[in-house]
């Protein structure tokens, strides 16, 4: 127990310690304040602008910004789709893997473009090295960079006064890629390689197992480069089917720690960036603290359930719930990872969530269902959280007798519309998706478990897709035409409805005048507000999902008693 506590505390300290300087650095990338790396990258940056036919001064309004994001993502969607169905005739395919089905290709393309990284496929059997590195790895960067770009636009929106423009998407994208994602993944990937993560275009190897004459195929590939960005960009799609539970994807304690850290690093650091960008670091801190509180409570809840609420066999309680967890990681690290990966919209796993206790699994599912805002996806987590902040500001603001305002900007009907779209889309898509799945004939054959746990498998799958998480509760065979198509659509909608809402919110905020701050202004930085924010998030989440959760993990818990 002490070991787990020390480890978790150490993890949090390193996370906080690293996120602050990174956040301040990212502000420079966003605002154009000079920094060292920029000097080195400048020629390349200029070259890219020339190629794209844009330049830094060409600022966009919300409509153009939104359109650029959509076009960019659409392009990614088409490319990834085509790569997969035609991978059989494309190079870097030593295993001779055939093109995938159209619906799997669509699902996977939608999944990676939407930063979900839901994997209806299994990396080593379904995709060639070419599809993985040119299709998926590139999208890992692209979708993460788009998310951060939109957050930058929103931060500018809050900061600007009576201006229509919110930045240039292509410039944001280029700078985020060049100065944030690329250097961080490069360094990270090198460390991972040093720990034994594979990085090769060579074919699979075969080896004899220790037990004797059984021949085992060992899948290989350019893994390290994809794995680092999968974690940093809250993508989560593993190179191999079982993700970071696979020894060649995550071989040592250090590789595990680095990956775990990368999951939350950028989302946490963006809180700092936001505070800096709106010229009030306390605003970023308040959001950071709210996220941290929700995260810590969840870690404690999951760890407690896994450690003490494990299965009881013949009246004897087992020592912790080790099912589905790797021995090298143990309960503590697995619980911490599981919480981090569901809190952030990462979705990479180093243990199998389906094997968690009923209530441990409930916490993981709930973290996804509240909209991936406890750190959440890179960029998307914070703009999702800001929607909840505005919601809280709206209700609390009325109660102090003024038209609600946030960062000196009045919250008006158009803003509420955008906020509501941001908040509404994920739960509605999740619930409707799960309902549609349950109405399809023969769905029961797709499930591994029966009863409430079987229900949880479907609910988890659609929560994961409907909130762009990407992790699976396993047990649910998702590679079916219906699930692939519906799931793909849900992932796209869950990504782009909130994203466009955030962009238009940014545009509307930028247009506004600011109002003066007085004693009559609601503080959005004190502990009262942080408490209210957490309350609003938990209550909205609980009201949306309690009935469904009652049929899943809650029923699971009570029937097992």
């Amino acid at each position: 127990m002490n070991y787990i506590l020390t480890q978790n505390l150490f993890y949090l300290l390193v996370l906080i310690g690293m996120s602050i300087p990174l956040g301040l650095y990212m502000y420079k990338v966003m605002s154009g304040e000079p920094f060292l790396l920029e000097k080195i990258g400048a020629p390349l940056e200029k070259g890219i602008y020339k190629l794209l036919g844009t330049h830094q001064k060409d600022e966009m309004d919300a409509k153009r910004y939104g359109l650029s994001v959509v076009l960019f993502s659409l392009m990614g969607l088409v490319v990834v789709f085509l790569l997969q169905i035609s991978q059989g005739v494309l190079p870097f395919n030593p295993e001779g893997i055939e093109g995938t089905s159209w619906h799997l290709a669509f699902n996977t393309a939608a999944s990676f473009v939407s930063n979900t990284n839901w994997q209806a496929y299994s990396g080593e059997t379904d995709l060639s090295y070419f599809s993985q590195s040119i299709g998926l790895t590139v999208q890992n960067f692209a979708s993460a960079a788009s998310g951060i770009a939109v957050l930058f636009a929103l931060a500018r929106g809050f900061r600007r006064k009576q201006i229509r423009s919110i930045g240039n998407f292509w410039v944001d994208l280029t700078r985020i890629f060049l100065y944030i994602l690329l250097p961080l993944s490069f360094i990270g990937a090198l460390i991972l390689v040093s720990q034994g993560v594979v990085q090769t275009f060579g074919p699979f190897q075969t080896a004899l197992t220790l037990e004797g004459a059984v021949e085992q195929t060992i899948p290989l590939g350019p893994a390290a480069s994809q794995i680092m960005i999968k974690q940093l960009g809250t993508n989560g799609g593993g190179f191999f089917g079982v993700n970071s539970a696979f020894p060649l994807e995550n071989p040592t304690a250090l590789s595990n720690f680095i990956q775990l850290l990368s999951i939350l690093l950028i989302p946490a650091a963006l809180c700092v960036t936001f505070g800096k960008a709106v010229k009030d670091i306390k605003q970023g801190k308040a959001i950071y603290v709210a996220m941290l509180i929700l995260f810590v409570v969840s870690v404690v809840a999951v760890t407690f359930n896994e450690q003490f609420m494990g299965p009881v066999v013949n009246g004897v309680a087992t020592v912790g719930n080790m099912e589905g967890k790797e021995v090298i990681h143990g309960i503590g690290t697995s619980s911490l990872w599981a919480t981090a990966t569901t809190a952030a919209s990462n979705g990479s796993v180093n243990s199998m969530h389906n094997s968690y206790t009923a209530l441990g699994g409930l916490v993981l599912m709930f973290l996804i269902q509240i909209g991936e805002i406890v750190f959440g996806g890179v960029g998307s987590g914070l703009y999702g959280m800001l929607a909840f902040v505005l919601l809280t500001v709206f209700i609390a603001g009325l109660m102090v007798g003024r038209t609600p305002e946030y960062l000196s900007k009045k919250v008006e009907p158009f803003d509420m519309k955008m906020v509501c779209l941001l908040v509404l889309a994920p739960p509605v898509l999740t619930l409707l998706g799960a309902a549609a799945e349950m109405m399809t004939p023969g769905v029961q054959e797709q499930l591994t478990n029966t009863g409430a746990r079987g229900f949880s498998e479907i609910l988890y799958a659609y929560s994961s897709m409907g909130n762009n998480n990407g992790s699976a509760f396993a047990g649910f065979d998702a590679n079916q035409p219906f699930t692939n198509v519906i799931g793909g659509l849900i992932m796209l909608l869950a990504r782009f409805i909130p994203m466009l809402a955030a962009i238009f919110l940014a545009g509307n905020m930028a247009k506004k005048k600011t109002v003066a701050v007085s004693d009559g202004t609601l503080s959005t930085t004190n502990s009262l507000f942080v408490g209210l924010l957490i309350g609003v998030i938990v209550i909205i989440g609980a009201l949306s999902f309690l009935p469904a959760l009652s049929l899943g993990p809650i029923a699971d818990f009570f029937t097992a008693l």
Partner: protein
Amino acid sequence: MENKNISGSILKDSIYQSFVKLSPLVQVRNPVMFVVYIGAVLTTSLYFLSFAGIQDERAGYVLAIALFLWFTVLFANFAEAIAEGRGRAQADTLKKARKDVKTKKLYSADNTDEFEEVMSVDLKKGDIVYVVAGEQIPMDGEVIEGAASVDESAITGESAPVIRESGGDRSAVTGGTTLVSDWLIVKITVESGNSFLDRMISMVEGASRKKTPNEIALQILLVTLTIIFLVVSATLLPYTQFTSEFVGAGTAIPITNVIALLVCLAPTTIGALLSSIGIAGMSRLNQANVLAMSGRAIEAAGDTDVLLLDKTGTITLGNRQASEFIPVEGVTEESLAEACQLSSIADETPEGRSIVKLAKDEYGIRKRDLSELNATFVPFTAKTRMSGVDYQGEVLRKGAADSVKAFVIDNGGNYPQECQEAVDRVAKEGGTPLVVAKNNAVLGVIHLKDIVKSGVKERFRELHNMGIKTVMITGDNPMTAAAIAAEAGVDDFLAEATPEAKLELIKKYQKEGHLVAMTGDGTNDAPALAQADVAVAMNTGTQAAKEAGNMVDLDSNPTKLIDIVRIGKQLLITRGALTTFSVANDVAKYFAIIPVLFFTIYPELEALNFMNLTSSTTAILSAIIYNAFVIIALIPLALRGVKYRGLSAEKLLKRNMLIYGLGGLIAPFIAIKLIDMFLTFIGIV
């Protein structure tokens, strides 16, 4: 403008209106309640279908749910009707004043003998009418000739007649008011149907009530919550269908229960009361005798954080009063007091009277009669800027320091340094110095003091704590203004204010992001009134001022601005508090309903029923009944508004969160349990 209490007739009318409002055309305007309405229609249909053999749940249970859903809709209608009822009663009174009268339309303003008798509705803008005592003023207009006392009680409720005269700031007359004395020649300034009274009637009736931006934003939030809960409830059909087949136990949940769950979760409490809160806010403003030209103006009042307050009448009593006599060397206080008294005996201005009073109170100098002394009174003129008496060859004068100085020096005397010092001291203390001189000798200085109204200091402190900045506007010099500002506790002041300076000040504050409220009455206030975010025109003011403002204060009381801000804030707080209460309620409703909802599939979930409700029937019915009656229970609060205190944002939020947030969490637990016990007691299981 009475109607503080709701009379029996309003109540009866409101009940009638509750049924009239069942029309789907009315219902569709309120999306949250429309969902309940559809739910009521559906459950009613399910009840009738049960006779055709299509059974959703037991017929009696379905009927009970349907009935309470209809009650919920009716209660919401009633809440709106009763809020409108007060306005309607008010409008009826006003309509009586708007009767069509015969009036004398002049061919030219110079000749009152030649006129044509026309009906008031036929008057056009620009027509000139002649009104004599006993007649009603036919339409809003501007007095171009004459002076008369006018009974405006039909509009203001104030029975004392007011003076209306041509020129100056009291030239506006309102149609529907009656001349008590004399005559007036009035130029009509509005077209028929667009008069002040017309606008007033449509405002209090709520006919021209448009949803305010804030109300729309809240509506968006409520609709969003309703959509989420619609999906939450509707998806339970496939979820339970799937689960019951999968587990092999129980059945899909009945449609009746899905509807019941939806209605319980949807923010019906605030949805039902939202429009009443808005109408009641307007009513409260009307009761304060302020007429807002739009609902938006009230909300803007709640947002204002800078109040421009005229010094006179708001901060100080209208008149300055003598507080001290300061003699120069060689003059005793008594002789100065005597001279002051003598110079002021015939001075009927409040200042003059206060000098006589001070002389009597402090020095026992009795009132004398001018004619006995053979003295003649010399009144104040703008040119001399002095007043006094001439008696027995002596010339006694009092007046502004510079005019008396000129007077003394002209008469060959000298103006002592000592006097100048006394004058400066008085000015520094915020007073007005009057210098008294006899012939060519200065006798001393009278200290006229502005008396700060009692209680204003506390109010300003309260406003300050609320984050509202008070700015005193005065024509005084900066030194005087600073002293009074300090005494009254305002945050800032504008001295030697001109209409232009006032306008500039408003612009400056607005540029800094402040919302500015002000009052005004004169024509020269009009530009500033038009610029301010909340502009309250005095009813006694000119037509121009009234048109520039977005509110009219029928009492013409400049202190009213503070009440207006309070009413605006109260309106927003009431909305926020009831929204919080409504959403917080859902938690308890969940705990009542969820454990019993899936009872047939997972009997184990009974463990969550820690409220120990009797059965699924009583649990769901209790929640639905609570949901309906809480609307009725909260109508008084919606009409009256949440109690408002002048606290800082943080304290206010803490307080309201505790009452309406925590209260909203706890109250339904208790109420639902009690209703469940009652239902069990009367034998419903």
